[in-house]
């Protein structure tokens, strides 16, 4: 009598696939569905910044429609939202935010309550950290946003592969308009009182539907576009759900991982890279987190990217191999820690 589990590949058994392996010897964890093309765009939560930077360092053609001014030092460039993704949109934690950005750039949607104030300075609620000192007037915020959207529109018209990292399920939504924000008002600027903005924990079905809506819209202008999804391994800094933050994190990541898995299994043009598993899985034994048990170590990023590049060999190594430092990663989410 035979079992269907007999004769599987070693990677399909926990003992031979994980327990007897190290992250240096593990194999078959990621098999690409398709090679990366030219004109890669990156977006997502803060962990996606590592992917974007490593793709660039390894010679991949990552679009940057809002490059930093020549000479601006990298730490300052990042302070202004340059060199993080393919445009200065900052962190995008949920697919609905990216869908909304697409629609806004194509004049299909006008977000509400977009200018947030703090101490007489004005901030773009959709990317509150790209101007750390804010603007002097609300009108300036709108002018800068229009300029940004012009570039974002051009990005969507060029992209061939979209690398998107799912970050959170928890978000902030303007009830009347449905506008989604990357942070709660009052975190960087603005105020929650009277804003009409409230907490929302996006469900599996909502996240999946939002991503598929984005995919459909993108395919109308880029029919050959492909998607590479990842799930950020970075835990929540704080949760607005009533659960313990650890339980809320596992719930949030599980939903995102399930959506990514569903999309991966359902569509030939959607690939999934298991950076989440590499950083958080049993094999890593937690060593890829800093002492705060939240930030991912350089070794963790390095290991994830090494496994990624085994499937996507570097095109040409940049002559200036920039060392990726954890402080190079900008995370609005981390700002919540000041309230802890």
């Amino acid at each position, binding site marked *: 009598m035979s079992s269907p589990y007999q004769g599987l590949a070693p990677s399909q058994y926990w003992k031979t696939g994980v327990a007897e392996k190290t992250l240096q010897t593990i194999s078959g964890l990621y098999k690409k569905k398709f090679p990366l093309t030219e004109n890669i765009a990156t977006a997502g939560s803060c962990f996606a910044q590592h992917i974007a930077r490593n793709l660039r360092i390894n010679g991949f053609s990552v679009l940057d429609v*809002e490059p*930093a*001014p*020549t*000479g*601006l*030092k990298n730490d*300052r460039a990042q302070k*202004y939202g340059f060199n993080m993704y393919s445009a200065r949109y900052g962190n995008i934690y949920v697919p609905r935010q990216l869908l909304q950005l697409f629609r806004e750039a194509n004049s299909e949607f006008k977000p509400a309550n977009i200018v947030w104030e703090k101490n007489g300075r004005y901030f773009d609620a959709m990317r509150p950290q790209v*101007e750390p*000192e804010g*603007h*002097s007037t609300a009108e*300036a915020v709108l*002018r*800068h946003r229009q*300029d940004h959207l012009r*570039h974002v529109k051009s990005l969507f018209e060029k992209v061939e592969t979209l690398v998107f990292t799912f970050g959170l399920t928890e978000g902030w939504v303007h009830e009347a308009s449905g506008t989604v924000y990357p942070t709660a008002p009052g975190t960087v600027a603005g105020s929650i009182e009277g804003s009409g903005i409230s907490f929302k924990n996006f469900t599996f079905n909502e996240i999946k539907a939002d991503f598929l809506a984005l995919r459909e819209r993108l395919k109308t202008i880029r029919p050959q576009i492909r998607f590479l999804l990842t799930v950020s391994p970075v835990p929540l800094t704080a949760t607005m759900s009533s659960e313990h933050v650890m339980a809320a994190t596992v719930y949030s990541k599980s939903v995102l991982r399930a959506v990514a898995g569903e999309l991966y299994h359902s569509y030939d043009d959607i690939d999934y890279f298991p950076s989440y598993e590499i950083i958080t899985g049993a094999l890593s034994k937690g060593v890829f987190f800093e002492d705060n048990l939240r930030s991912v170590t350089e070794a963790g990023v390095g290991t994830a990217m090494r496994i990624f590049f085994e499937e996507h060999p570097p095109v040409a190594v940049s002559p200036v191999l920039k060392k990726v430092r954890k402080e190079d990663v900008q995370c609005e989410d981390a700002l919540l820690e000041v309230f802890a």
Partner: protein
Amino acid sequence: MKRICVIGNSHIAAIKQAWDELAPDHPGLKMSFFASGGMRLKDLKADDGKLAPSTQYLTERFYSDTGEKAIDPSQYDVFILVALGYGLTHIIFTALDYRADSMNTGLSPYKHLVSDACFKEAATDKLDGMAVTSVLRELRSLTDKPVILLAQPLPSARKLYRCKTGQFKDIVNYGDKLMDIWLEYGRKLSKDYRIKIVYQHPVTVKERFFTRGKFSGGVHLSEKLDDYSRPAPPADMHHMNTNFGKLMIKSAMRHMGY
């Protein structure tokens, strides 16, 4: 005999050719010239009491009229640095693509709108990355002797007429903002490295931010000075001519007490 060491990039050519003509009238001065194009002199490092090329690339492209391979500060009384990236031109080039709020007149195209704070940091960082800061740092590690920096010439006013997009003409409207950043950086250099900065003579300036056409047109650059295969004179609108160089030398000499 006062011994002057002149260190610069491609802009040194106008100074050198001017000095070749002026030298007979100044028997009490001896100038020695050391140069390499663009920002290559960032690789000039203090080594065993001298400033010497630290890379093979610079060694092969290091010009000196004396044939020396390194600069020995003990052999000179005064140092004149020429341009080495300390130029409004570099900020102008940032402004052509990146327009800060206060510079946005709506009269000329740009690629990116940025905040004034971002623009200022970008311009300052850009100047900070030029050869002038590294040469000063290395030089000051070896000597406390007087240093005069001759600012890079403003771009030729011919740009005003040749640029079809109107971007250069528009600089007249917001150039004060760029000038403020440039001069503020210069004051910092002066303070940090105890140097005098000599800006170009007012008679050479047109529309505040440009060099009169008759002073531009450039000089022929030797291979070691030409980092960018620039257009030959007179189409070169960034390098100035011998008459310009003479005025700069005379200004520098006044600072030296001549």
